[in-house]
């Protein structure tokens, strides 16, 4: 009844008009912006109502309409509870892409978007330079000064100032092209995987990438990286640049398609440690018409994408290493939206955490661990106040939980939590799931085995 794909504004109009949403309201309680405001317009049902009013010519899109669309975090929590299966993420991508056709953004915003989306993110060299510039600005105090005194974009500089300190260049090395498996494993365990390093991960969270690689090799995988794969285009798709998202999707598909010069075969899994990226990479086909050859190629790539926890959990269950990590205080887990709502991955991260013996310090549950932290890609930079307001109840929950280590699985969420925790003055550390597992594994691997491996035997 409704079109299979929503790719263009015409299709959005079709879809909104023949919409599966019948206004039942089950989405209301899940929506962070509705929870924050109590205004139905700022709920999934309300936004769909607006889209439908536009589709039926009962409403002309104006600033208020665009603001409501941009207020949405695209966390897709509503999709997890929608009985009619409304595809809010897809609808939002197209609504945002088309809504500036008649009302162009300001010159400054267009310039910033061009720099960010078209120059910086797709380009490894530009990312590397920006990493160094950012480190300089952080170390010299320039960024702090800009965040307080800049005549323009002060909020955005403040958002940059909240980023984690960039590590020195020698720690920001890209991973080696191949890393062999460590230790002895049953033959079913030894395999080749391709690891996606991501765009900002090597600059901001290089230690997470290293931990991911180590975990994979310790579980018996030979890890390859692919220098041609840089940015997956998720940020573009979520923020109204479908053209940019399509072009990056094509680059990514090209990069991973099996050919002699690369390690990739049609069955090599691609492990992704950023939930927002893995969710998007599984859905690249949405960007192309089903008759377009790129559509089938995107689907072939999607079959190989596995989130870190999705790859690791079953292997860990099979290996059953004796994992211990004595911590001084309880730990908790916050599930990134694009992991639980975007990919329905809920049990795997918990299975991984349950396989580790944390000593006397138990795992505590975080209330609302499936609700959005307000990071939402670049949302925290675009709408810093809303983003902080959305995180507030979660910070309360974190405080109530008593946890001193919060684990998540997405760089945006990690940054958002870190800056919120600093703002509140809480004493809680934030780590990626891979870092915790790496710690636990490194403490459980028998020394002899490690030595043997390091000697290259």
């Amino acid at each position, binding site marked *: 009844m409704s079109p299979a794909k929503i790719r263009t504004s015409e299709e959005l109009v079709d879809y909104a008009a023949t919409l599966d949403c*019948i206004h*039942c*309201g089950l989405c*209301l*309680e899940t929506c962070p912006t509705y929870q924050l405001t109590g205004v139905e317009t700022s709920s999934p049902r309300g936004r769909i*109502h*607006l889209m439908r009013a536009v589709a039926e010519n009962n409403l002309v899109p104006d600033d208020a309409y665009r603001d409501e669309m941009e207020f949405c975090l695209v966390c897709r929590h509503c999709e997890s509870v929608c*009985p*009619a299966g409304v595809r809010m993420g897809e609808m939002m991508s197209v609504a945002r892409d088309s809504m500036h056709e008649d009302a162009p953004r300001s010159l400054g915003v267009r310039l910033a978007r061009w720099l960010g989306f078209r120059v910086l993110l797709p380009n490894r060299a530009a990312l590397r330079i920006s990493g160094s510039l950012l480190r300089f600005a952080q170390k010299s105090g320039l960024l702090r000064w800009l965040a307080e005194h800049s005549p323009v974009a002060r909020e955005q500089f403040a958002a940059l100032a909240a980023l984690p300190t960039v590590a020195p260049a020698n720690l920001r090395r890209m991973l080696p092209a191949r890393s062999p498996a460590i230790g002895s494993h049953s033959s079913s365990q030894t395999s080749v995987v391709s690891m996606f390093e991501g765009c900002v991960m090597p600059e901001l969270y290089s230690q997470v990438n290293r931990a991911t690689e180590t975990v994979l090799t310790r579980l018996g995988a030979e890890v390859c990286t692919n220098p041609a794969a840089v940015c997956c285009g998720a940020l573009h798709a979520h923020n109204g640049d479908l053209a940019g998202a399509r072009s990056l999707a094509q680059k990514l598909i090209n990069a991973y398609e099996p050919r002699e010069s690369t390690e990739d075969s049609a069955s090599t899994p691609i492990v992704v440690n950023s939930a927002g990226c893995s969710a998007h990479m599984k859905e690249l086909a949405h960007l192309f018409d089903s008759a377009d050859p790129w559509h089938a190629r995107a689907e072939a790539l999607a079959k190989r994408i596995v989130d870190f926890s999705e790859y690791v959990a079953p292997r860990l269950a099979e290996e059953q290493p004796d994992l211990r990590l004595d911590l001084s205080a309880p730990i908790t887990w916050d599930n990134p939206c694009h992991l639980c709502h975007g990919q329905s991955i809920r049990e795997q991260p918990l299975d991984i955490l349950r396989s580790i013996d944390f000593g006397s310090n138990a795992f505590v549950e975080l209330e609302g661990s499936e609700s959005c932290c307000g990071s939402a890609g670049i949302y925290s930079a675009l709408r810093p106040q809303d983003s902080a307001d959305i995180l507030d109840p979660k910070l309360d929950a974190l405080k109530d939980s008593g946890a001193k280590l919060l684990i998540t699985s997405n760089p945006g969420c990690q940054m958002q939590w870190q800056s919120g925790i600093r703002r509140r003055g809480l004493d809680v550390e934030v780590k990626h799931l891979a870092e915790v597992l790496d710690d636990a594994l490194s403490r459980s691997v028998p020394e002899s085995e490690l030595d043997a491996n390091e000697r290259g035997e």
Partner: protein
Amino acid sequence: MNAKVHSELRAIVGDRGIVDSPTRIVPYESDGLAILRQRPELVLLPRTTEETAACMQVLHREGVPIVPRGAGTGLAGGATPVEGGVVIGLARMREVLELNVEDRFARVQAGLVNASLTRACEKHDLFYAPDPSSQRACTLGGNIAANSGGPHCFKYGNTTQHVLGLVIVTHDGEVLELTESDVEPLGYDLVGLFVGSEGTFGIATEIKLRLVRRPPVVETLLAIFTDLDSACETATKMIARRLEPSAIEILDKLTIQAVEDSVFAAGYPREAGAVLLTEVEGLEEEVSATSEDIRAIFSECGAIEVRTARDDAERLSLWAGRKGAFGAMGRVAPDLYVADACVPRTKLGAMVQQTVEIAKELNLRLATVFHAGDGNLHPNICYDRRDQDEVRRVLEAGRRILESCVDAGGSLSGEHGVGLEKLEQMEYQFAAEDLATMCLVRDVWDPDRRLNPGKLIPLRACMETRAAFIGKTPQDIAR
């Protein structure tokens, strides 16, 4: 209203408590009955009883009509705005004010979501019993207005059985406290009168509710049938033999398929003609004896399979499927008309048959899901509101279904209320004198008829009453 009044109201509720942009107001144009739409002039979202009262005083002075709104999940148009009117929404009043575990009650703000109350008290082994299918979204204030039901109301009774007290803001902004410490009200039961008044008596802002102890043992059974008739016959027999499960629900084939396609897929078999979902609660011996008797009726009536939920997760999943049924119908057609009527439970089978015939005659797609325990039918008609002729046929079917229920000795509403949807049929169910009496009661609470005007009681009946009392003709009043 002029800009001065707008800013006066803004000063009361704050910037975030007022929705007045012509775009932002659009989603408030309807409630769950999307076929009826009217954009209001303004939406106000007060945070407290005091703010509500202050708003109501200003609106009283200005003579502005008011439509109260919970979460807008009602299905009878009870929260459809009126032209030039103001919507007062409860969505920002969602605090639990007091949780008294020993005396087993809670005091809450009226905008608290139904399911949040159970969540707040479940660690004390207590729960709030009325469980409408929209319980994850609908507000307790909205439940008061509609006297809402739900599957388990078969055992526990509708909302009215659970309300111990109310704080009400009246039409002119006065705050009335009807909260009593005793379970049995002294004098007139004004709380009882208020529950189910669909926003025509005032706005409840705080509610004192009874909490119920969680039963020690719960058994959930799913019986699978090849046809809807056998499922109805089973329900009728269960009641006739005085078995007391806490809920008896039936879903037909089209509903099963829609649910199974959704995120709430509960494992109902797609090839079944109907499923009957029932639950037995109590002490171990009691539960196993009742469940034994129920199983006997299942096999007597030709159930092809009976499943028992093995654990809480499976039980919740069976219920989540039932409660997501309404929304899941969006998979069948863009719009859904949910009828709501009651018949004596001995007439369930015949009435279901009749709704099937009405739908067939008018060439409409019908999916039926109902609270069989209460004799509360929900024939769901799937349609597309862009097809004018289909809309006409849907309304025709709705009218005929409601009238047949009344003819069968039943009632216009099981739980959704009258709202705008069933206004016309009120005259079918009640004599003119009855409606006139209701109008007299309504006039005591709202002499200017500004509270949810045009809902619940047909305007004509009201105008006639007033004419009789103040010696004017209905035409004079209409003017």
